[in-house]
């Protein structure tokens, strides 16, 4: 079992999840985070703290493809342990639909 980040994180990237995670299993893209499924211990601490409600458990409807998405990008992006700057317009992107198609940036976060 694991949790996964969905497209609702794109351009929101609040990073509240990072403080809650006991195993530091988040990885950072240019405009979203993902969870490495192999490292997630299914503790559920991140899910309720996400202001964008972007995190789902892998048994939620439609979650399977997000687990694969998270697995793919966790292998490509750098690990993130501590919160950095939150995008200034993060609030405006909360709950916006179709962000994966129009807003997703597959580039890793600059380090």
């Amino acid at each position: 079992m694991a949790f996964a980040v969905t497209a609702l994180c794109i351009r929101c990237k609040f990073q509240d999840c990072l403080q809650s995670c006991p195993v530091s299993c988040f990885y950072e893209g240019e405009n979203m985070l993902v969870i490495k499924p192999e490292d997630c211990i299914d503790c559920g601490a991140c899910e309720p703290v996400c202001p964008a409600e972007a995190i789902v458990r892998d048994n939620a409807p439609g979650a399977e493809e997000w687990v694969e998405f998270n697995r793919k990008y966790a292998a490509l992006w750098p690990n993130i342990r501590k919160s950095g700057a939150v995008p200034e317009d993060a609030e405006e992107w909360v709950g916006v639909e179709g962000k994966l198609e129009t807003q997703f940036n597959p580039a890793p976060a600059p380090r």
Partner: protein
Amino acid sequence: MPQLDSGPSMNIAIVGAGPAGFYTAEALAALCPGCELDLIERLPTPYGLIRSGVAPDHQTTKTIQQTFERIAQSINLRFIGNVEIDRDISLAELRDAYDVVVLSCGAPHDAPLDIPGHKLRGVYGATAFVGWYNGHPDYAELAPLLDSPGAVIIGNGNVAIDVARILAKSVAELASSDIAAHAMRAIAASRIGDIHIMGRRGPIEAKFTNVELRELGELEEAVALAQPDQIPGALGDGLSPRERREKAKNLECFRLFAAADAAAHRRRIRFQFYARPVAILGAERVQAVRFEPVRIDAGRVAGHGQTFDVPCGLLVSAIGYRIRALGGLPVAETGDRLANAAGKITAGLYVVGWAKRGPSGKIGTNRGDGEDVAQRIKAEESAAGKPGFAALEAMLRRRGVHWSSFTDWKTIEAAEIAAAPAGAPRRKLVRVDEMLALCAK
């Protein structure tokens, strides 16, 4: 490796090998390279509540212990198990031996259920009950009574849910857990059919997290139930956006529970709100709990109406934790933490985890917490030329204390894995003497 700092490095003793102790050790190793780090634990085994608190059927969460094992093996950390403050050594002796002492000993006692009858047989605190099914040596002999059709759990947090779920699960569901063998046998023979989770306040005030609550709706042989008239239609004011999100999901869950059909299930988990316990009834053992219905008036709980009795042979109270005055240190007024200012008790003495901030937060909360206190230690403390482990070792030898090393723990762990029943990750050893028999002398 050459020392970058001027002067010798500190020796630091951390007391309590749970998450707070490990995260603090990790942070100290990064901030004060070269310091001597000794992790003292009262049991022969490490990992604290990961081993004895996290529910035995939440095995994925328990894999966090791999993170702690990595810490133990990647930094210069000496594990010293089966050594207890106030039993084997005093806090003063430890402070004489080490430049810095960090207490990460948790809040390991149950808040008392202070009503008539609380000493009857069949009444247990959650620490004891959870410790029993998790194989904690302190509670291996608890032998709780599971022979009556009713069980009452008082408290509205995730611990109450854990207890209810373990009591409600089938033997097949528990087969992949590392529940203690004595608890597995007892639960297999249990006659419990109705498990009442009782709260003084309502479903919105309850501290359940949504993931745990939802899990009760997915059990093989048990159904979760709620009373439709106790589930509010809306959230009301005064909640932060985060609370609103979480509580809305919980209400959705309770509405499903309220609509569920009790028939054709072997066990029923019944949520009942707005009721406070006033007495535990029974002659020699608990036979029922008497509750008074309450109303919430301007945030305050006020009793009203006729009391009612819930028949039960088992009562578990999960209403919070208390800390004891370790080494005679002052306890905060709340009773659930040591008096401290942002992790500092006095020069050379610090506190992290639950012992610092009280029993709140998740496993990961301890990471940031440990880092903060480690920063403070680096800024405010320096080596004072104390002897460190050599002095502790001499004391322990003189007193004939048999302590365990991390290698000994790995031997215990290997024995537990080798003895695992089919499908289970391990069969826990539950007696300290059994564990020590496997440890090097």
